[in-house]
């Protein structure tokens, strides 16, 4: 029984069957990659996990509880954090403030006003946030505007924000898309380090085989909205069906 | 700290403190400086002309302002003297008011009660105006009138036609020369009965706000007294521009008269639309379909263009009147500006003169003295025949004009022709008439 159990999920957009019959089980404390050619339905599937989309059929269970019908913030509170394809951070806020928000969320739950307590008195939150920033090697950037950082740093910040919530499942949507090689490698190292330090399950959607094979412990290949194979990286590498799917697309 | 209710800039403006030492701060006290708000102590007196300068009534406001400028000129002895020569009271000498030169400040009411009050307040507080006058709608008149009552200055209403101004919202410090909804109804009804017969079915379109309500009520009750039947009344929003959906149902009703209780842009559009729908050419119940516009103004007639031809309405005054007062006013206004004055200009001009005359006769600028001088004042030579400023409600009682859109206008100003001058007796009502019920004048407030 995995921490994330996907059964029979199907989703249709008008005339397009985006997902059909998806079955998937992500085991606890593993890195599970979902790969597939463009348009295979990877992002659609991910959106079904976080409440952004509701599948037409099937179920998505996290730790024995259904996530369907819950709003994104409720799903997050269950212990799922998501990293987006383009880093989604609070661009108008400073790096430190970016980090403080998940810390508040962790402490106060969904909604607390705190309208009259000044930032200065929030020592514990600031300390926590600073601590995470140090972990992420970003302490020197704490007063920068988040929007003015490099893409790699934004990604790092976003991952840090997700981690500060201590999620049980971290969803990564093409975390290295559009990154330079050096940034990609940094991100891989960061993820490896995270995996080493914590008990955390990571589900990663990725296009870049280099990233996938550096990190994943299990891989599911998605093609035309349905899982093709699921296996270890070694076995996937030479799998004929996978080659067909990829070559078919590139031809 | 000393107390004063409103400031009296006039005191300093006129140079009374010219010699005061720079080093020693002087704190004025209200009681020692003056007996009432903005008492003029120097050689001049400031009047506040509060007219719409922006918004849909800006042109009417501009005409009011022209009239005021002319009035100030005449009061100060300039120009040909205008109505000062025909006015029955001879207290004014052409040397200002009580020997003080008349100065004025202007403001923009924007035809909004808030803005109008802000503008009036600034005239009272900043410029030391002793009297506020002007305006082109009843909402503004009522709001500014209440303000003047509070501040202790006189308010001489400009164009305001709602019964409420001298009815439920009357104030001791406020005076209205313009006629009102009741008078329109009373003057129109006999003329209408005469022209269109007493067996008529009327359909009212009424602007959905206070003035509309009082006008509809007045016209209804006086036409119904003549035997007309009211078959429908519909309220239309102030912000309406296209009245087609209100006009079309008239076709389905068995009404043979349409009464448009609209003013300004509403009236221009509703009349234009009514004519578009061919109502003028219609035959209903074997009679010609007719349209009536209770309150006419030349500017509105101009906006509606050829559509006004032959349509009855009432008006306070018209430049084609041939009495001496009207002729004198038209002469001096026309000479100065090149076109004849509107009824708004006329009422404003007359109000300014009446105020000055009242001060002169009272021998004091004190608002309470002025109120006393105006209450029950009878005068003539101002264009509407013998007129009474009634003490009970501060409303002028005078002849009312019933007019009709002219078939062959000779110029863009010659749009209306006078059908009848309704004598004052016919439009007079008791102060406690139900259409004016509620409210009380209170007592005059001199401020300070």
């Amino acid at each position, binding site marked *: 029984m995995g921490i994330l159990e996907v059964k029979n999920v199907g989703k249709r957009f008008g005339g397009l069957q985006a997902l059909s019959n998806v079955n998937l089980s992500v085991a606890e404390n593993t890195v599970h990659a979902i790969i597939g050619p463009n348009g295979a339905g990877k992002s659609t599937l991910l959106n079904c996990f976080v409440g952004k989309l509701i599948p037409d059929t099937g179920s998505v269970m996290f730790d024995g509880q259904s996530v369907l019908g819950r709003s994104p913030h409720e799903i997050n509170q269950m212990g799922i954090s998501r990293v987006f394809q383009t880093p989604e951070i609070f661009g108008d806020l400073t790096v430190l403030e970016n980090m403080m*928000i998940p810390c508040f969320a962790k402490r106060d739950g969904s909604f607390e006003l705190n309208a009259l307590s000044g930032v200065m008195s929030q020592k514990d939150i600031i300390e926590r946030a600073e601590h995470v920033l140090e972990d992420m090697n970003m302490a020197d950037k704490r007063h920068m505007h988040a929007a003015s950082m490099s893409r790699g740093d934004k990604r790092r910040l976003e991952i840090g924000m997700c981690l500060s919530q201590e999620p049980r499942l971290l969803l990564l949507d093409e975390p290295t898309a559009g990154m330079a090689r050096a940034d990609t490698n940094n991100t891989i190292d960061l993820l490896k380090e995270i995996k080493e330090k914590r008990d955390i399950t990571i589900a990663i959607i990725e296009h870049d085989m280099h990233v996938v094979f550096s990190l994943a412990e299990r891989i599911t290949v998605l093609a035309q909205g349905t899982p093709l194979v699921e296996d270890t990286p070694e076995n996937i590498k030479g799998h004929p069906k996978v080659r067909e799917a990829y070559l078919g697309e590139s031809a | 700290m000393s107390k004063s209710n409103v400031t009296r800039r006039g005191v300093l403006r006129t140079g009374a403190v010219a010699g005061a030492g720079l080093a020693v701060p002087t704190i004025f006290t209200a009681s020692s400086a003056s007996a009432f708000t903005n008492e003029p102590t120097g050689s001049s007196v400031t009047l506040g002309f509060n007219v719409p300068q922006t918004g849909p009534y800006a042109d009417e406001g501009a005409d009011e302002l022209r009239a005021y400028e002319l009035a100030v000129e005449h009061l100060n002895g300039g120009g040909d003297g205008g109505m000062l020569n025909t006015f029955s009271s001879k207290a004014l000498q052409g040397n200002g008011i009580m020997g003080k030169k008349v100065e004025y400040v202007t403001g923009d009411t924007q035809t909004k009660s808030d803005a109008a009050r802000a503008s009036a307040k600034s005239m009272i507080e900043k410029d030391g105006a002793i009297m506020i006058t002007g305006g082109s709608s009843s909402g503004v008149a009522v709001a500014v009138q209440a303000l003047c009552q509070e501040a202790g200055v006189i308010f001489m209403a400009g164009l305001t036609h709602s019964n409420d101004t001298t009815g439920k919202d009357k104030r001791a410090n406020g005076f209205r020369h313009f006629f009102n909804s009741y008078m329109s109804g009373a003057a129109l009804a006999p003329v209408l009965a005469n022209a269109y017969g007493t067996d008529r079915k009327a359909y009212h379109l009424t602007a959905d706000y206070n003035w509309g309500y009082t006008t509809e009520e007045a016209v209804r009750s006086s036409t119904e007294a003549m035997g007309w039947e009211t078959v429908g009344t519909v309220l239309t929003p102030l912000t309406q521009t296209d009245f087609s959906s209100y006009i079309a149902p008239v076709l389905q009703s068995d009404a043979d008269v349409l009464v448009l209780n609209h003013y300004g842009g509403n009236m221009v559009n509703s009349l234009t639309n009514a004519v578009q729908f061919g109502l003028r050419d219609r035959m209903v119940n074997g009679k010609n379909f007719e349209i009536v516009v209770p309150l006419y103004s030349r500017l509105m007639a101009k906006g509606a263009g050829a559509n006004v031809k032959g349509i009855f309405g009432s008006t306070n005054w018209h430049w084609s009147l041939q009495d001496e007062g009207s002729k004198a006013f038209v002469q001096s206004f026309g000479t100065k500006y090149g076109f004849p004055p509107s009824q708004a200009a006329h009422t404003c001009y007359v109000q300014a003169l009446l105020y000055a005359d009242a001060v002169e006769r009272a021998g004091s600028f004190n608002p309470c003295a002025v109120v006393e001088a105006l209450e029950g004042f009878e005068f003539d030579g101002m264009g509407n025949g013998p007129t009474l400023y009634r003490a009970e409600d501060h409303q002028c009682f005078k002849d009312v004009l019933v007019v009709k859109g002219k078939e062959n206008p000779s110029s863009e100003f010659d749009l209306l022709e006078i059908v009848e001058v309704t004598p004052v007796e016919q439009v007079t009502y008791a102060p406690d008439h139900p259409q004016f019920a509620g409210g009380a004048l209170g007592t005059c407030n001199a401020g300070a």
Partner: protein
Amino acid sequence: MFGLDKRDTTLLLIVAALVALAPFLLNPFPENSDLAQFNAGYPDLMQRFVIFGIFAIGFNILFGLTGYLSFGHAAFLGVGSYAAVWMFKLLSMNIIPAIVLAVIVAGVFALLIGFISLRRSGIYFSILTLAFAQMSFALAYSVLTPITGGETGLQLALDDPRIIGQQVTEGGNIPVPSLFGLEMRDSAELALGPWLFTFNIGYYVCAIIMLIAFYISIRIFRSPFGMMLRAIKSNQQRLNYTGLNSRPYTLAAFVISGMYAGLAGGLMASMDPLAGAERMFWTASGEVVLMTILGGAGTLIGPILGAGMIKYMENIISKINKTILHEWFYWMPDGLEDAMVSIVYPFIGKGWHLTLGIIFMLVVIFLPGGLVEGGQRIANFFRGRKAAKQEGKGTTEPAE
């Protein structure tokens, strides 16, 4: 001080000083000079400055922080003033119950409208708020006339009950709003040579309330709540995926800013006991949007500056007429004088709207951050001379 950091304390003290000394600062010209026309230090306008300042501060809490552009905020101001005037009619002329009720009623009204409107975002939210406000205006002007006074506005009458305190003054007039006997319209005057300064009780009451309102707004800006609101503006999606539901935050901001509007409405009625329906018309809502953007949305002091600017234009520029122009330019040769008058004339008096439109355009074209940015540029210019290029650019404070 007061739980604020040093910069904010300084800002608050500066604003307090400016507000306290406004009667001097706004009357810089001697009474008899030609420039006295530009003096703005008379009670009504000073009151308007601070009241609209409160309105704009409140609006900025919603728009500046969350980015939700409400186009119907004037409705809350209108409702607040109706509530206050009704208090004057029914209860007493003391302004405290009137203001309290104004704030409460506006808050409830905002809760209702906000609850519905905040189901949508972006322009759809703007149009929903606009629709609610326009409905309020239309109904208040027409069918609700018995409650609102309609066209003429809701005003006091001699026969109002006023169960506490006097119903009619000894002189037979309607009493005026007061605070435990201090009449709002009372003023003291100080003449210093040719200068005349007016100190009005109503103004100082408004000023103190505005300072409190400003202080609360600083606290909100600097609080975790304020940070959440800024996070909503910055990236609502991330906030949701961080386990936070943005709706309660936006609704709280909406209600708070509605209560600010109600406070402004209540104060307006307390200074001048009349409530007109035009207060709720869409142009009035648009005005507060313009004030905020003109001053600098999302900054603390910007909305106050914007409010002052627009009210100054409305009350001072609109009163300049041709006669005054001729007085100004009398020293010129005749031909030149007439030429100058005819050049300037379209922009003043009845042309004040034109000037206002031009200013909107100039500010937004050249100072995208509003008047505050203008101030910053000037400050940077002087600072730049001293400390050449010590810091470079990246120091734009998010909320200053």
